[in-house]
């Protein structure tokens, strides 16, 4: 028998029927993968027009949006795919937590997934900055200012990120390179590894053999692929609908010499960082912009080691063994959602 290829590796001849049901996984991992691929497919053509210089960035975005044939569609697809990716990625994380799928032996893959989500946030932020208009410029100013608050290494880190002491051409080209290369390549590798580890860790998280009476029913590869196909079509349907009827946002450009031409909108942070912007209203940047987000990441990263070390309850929704993990992550999610809504309405 020949060695299975990567596709066959991810799609074994049969998988357990219960865990293959849509209502168990909601297909969130696969959807995220599809959206990630959509981002690459739509992002590469954008690179042919986008010019990463302070003078030309906003102009080239306008060329893409208004002049280049189907530029508007590519940009809208790219934008909405990124929005949806953060949503499906986050929901995937919640699914993993609430169905106890982070437990040993999947603890390492939990870390890989978390890293992918964090890098996706950075990708989204760097993409947001590339618009180079008053809103994104405001977010960039605030964001890099937060970085500066890092104890000891803050200034060094800031200069590394900004490419000097002032936001300008060097900053833009650095964010551009991070966006199209520096972050994409690691994410690609991590996504591959993450998917590979699913099989290595024993396939999609499923109930222990002793928890099922008799042999659990299984479905063949063909059926799994069909289900995935339908989920993929559904995602593309949502993506195209959003892209056709709702345009990706744009704001007035920034004067390359004089700075912003207009006041940034009240909301300067991208939507996925609104919760941090909300915290910044009340607390100093070091606490709100660095320590709290780091704490959230730390809690999530250590979750399978600290909050729930048991293996019992894998693949069972809201199993009591994971009560603490569910409560803490639920509280974090609720906090982020509430802060985001509050800040959105400001």
């Amino acid at each position, binding site marked *: 028998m020949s060695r299975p290829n990567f596709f066959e590796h991810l799609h074994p001849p049969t998988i357990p029927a219960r865990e293959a049901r849509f209502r168990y996984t909601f297909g969130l991992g696969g959807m995220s993968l599809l959206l990630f691929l959509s981002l690459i497919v739509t992002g590469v053509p954008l690179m042919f027009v986008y010019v990463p210089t302070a003078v030309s960035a906003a102009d080239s975005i306008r060329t893409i949006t*208004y002049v280049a044939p*189907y530029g*508007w*569609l590519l940009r809208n697809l790219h934008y909405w795919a990124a929005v949806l990716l953060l949503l499906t990625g986050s929901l995937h994380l919640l699914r993993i937590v609430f169905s106890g799928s982070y437990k040993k032996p999947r603890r390492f893959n939990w870390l890989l997934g978390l890293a992918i989500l964090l890098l996706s946030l950075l990708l989204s932020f760097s993409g947001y900055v590339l618009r180079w208009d008053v809103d994104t410029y405001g977010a960039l100013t605030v964001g890099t200012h937060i970085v500066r608050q890092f104890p000891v290494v803050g200034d060094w880190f800031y200069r590394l990120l900004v490419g000097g002491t002032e936001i300008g051409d060097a900053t833009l080209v650095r964010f551009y390179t991070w966006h199209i290369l520096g972050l994409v390549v690691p994410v690609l590798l991590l996504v591959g590894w993450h998917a590979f580890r699913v099989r290595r860790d024993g396939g999609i998280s499923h109930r222990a053999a002793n928890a099922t009476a008799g042999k659990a029913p299984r479905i063949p590869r063909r059926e799994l692929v069909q289900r995935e196909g*339908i989920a993929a079509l559904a995602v593309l349907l949502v993506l195209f609908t959003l*892209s056709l009827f709702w345009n990706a946002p*744009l704001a*007035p*450009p920034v004067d390359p010499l004089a700075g912003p*031409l207009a006041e940034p909108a009240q909301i300067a942070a991208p939507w996925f960082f609104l919760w941090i912007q909300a915290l910044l209203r009340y607390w100093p940047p070091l606490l709100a912009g660095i320590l709290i987000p780091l704490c959230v990441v730390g809690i999530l990263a250590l979750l399978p080691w600290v909050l729930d070390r048991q293996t019992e309850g894998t693949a069972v929704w809201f199993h009591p063994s994971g009560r603490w993990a569910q409560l803490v992550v639920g509280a974090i999610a609720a906090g982020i959602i509430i802060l985001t809504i509050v800040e959105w309405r400001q």
Partner: protein
Amino acid sequence: MSGYQKATAVLGMLLLFLVIGALARQERQPEVVQLTPTLTGQPELCLTCHEGIEEISPTHSIETFGCVLCHGGDGLALDKDLAHATMRGGRNPSDLVVVEESCGGSACHSGAAADGRDHIHRVLTSVQATYAGAIAQVNYAFGGQADTTAHFGVTAVEDDEITTYTGLPALAAFHPGPEAPDPVQTFNRDCMHCHLSAAATQEPYYYRATGCAACHVVYENDGLYRGGDPTTPKDEPGHGRTHQLTTAIPYYQCNHCHNRGNYSLRQMTFLEREDLPGSPYLSAQDQRELEYYQPISQFTLCEWELDCVDCHTNGEVMGNGDIHSNQQEIQYIQCRTCHGTLTEMPLLETITDPDHPAIYSADLNPNYSVAVGDTVIATTEGETFGWVQWDGERLVETGKVDGRLYEVPLVMGSSCQQNPDEQESAYCHECHTYERTVTQP
């Protein structure tokens, strides 16, 4: 078909519809019209939507200036809100709040007086912009200040180069506090509508812009746009006649502010004249006679046959760069400027310099021209009336607004019985008042 196949087929069809929708939307994308003005070298797409709009003036040609240089805005955005979000002064870049950015610059309208480029400074210091005369008179009349010299303007203004003996160094912004006499506060609240920064009353006869465009962009009495910009509604009042600057400013443009009625200081309110609009069956000439002045005014034939700008010069209207307490301080054009006196011909000047301001001004007006060798009326303040020329035997006036020709009668050699010391128009009105023939219905 299995359930999977059905679901796939349905989703596939829906997706196909969306793809067709995307094709349709691309088809509906506007055909981009790009312009790269020579002064900025930056492409602009404004004409994609505004194709057909009038060039603002021959001296600001669209190929040279484009749109963004004056208007600001996001010239590459084809989304209305985004494109217009950063425009200067909304639709009017000549509003005095933004005029320095849009019309200024030492190469344009905020240069040196010697180069004739101090337009913005002259306008900002002019009584039309400061409203200093009215403020000073009212503030004095009601005990807010001890003299009739102006101390306040609509906004604070300074002049560091005083050239006339009535010129003032500065005005403070007029913000009477609660300690000011009541009528002064009422005046401040209700009567500060007659200056270049005040928005026009949105009613027929009042429509106008602010800033430079208040005079130089002509508004019809009905405030309707009659130009070719497809985005400006033709049935929505409050737009200029066309998107054009002009020095051929008709009397009714001046009348959007002047001759609209009277301020009653007793009631501290504006009393609108009641004789407008006249009968719809009046001839254009009768309509003009009716509209031009208020019923109680005294005026001569030429004062309503000609347009205001045929006599009231640039220097009078836009000011001379000094801050004055009263418009009268810089009104110096009299009947004698063109008609002379019993003993004196009007002042004449023969143009010898090809860069003479008379030639420059004539180039800005479509209705008359001045060339080297022409002899034109000169004023005591050194201005010239290029549109009133001496041909060796006669003095001929060309209407700045309509190009009509008039022979200017001279007082010298006539049977006029004027006293040489009495040259103000009121004295001329004693004999030459024109009796209004159009009566009020």
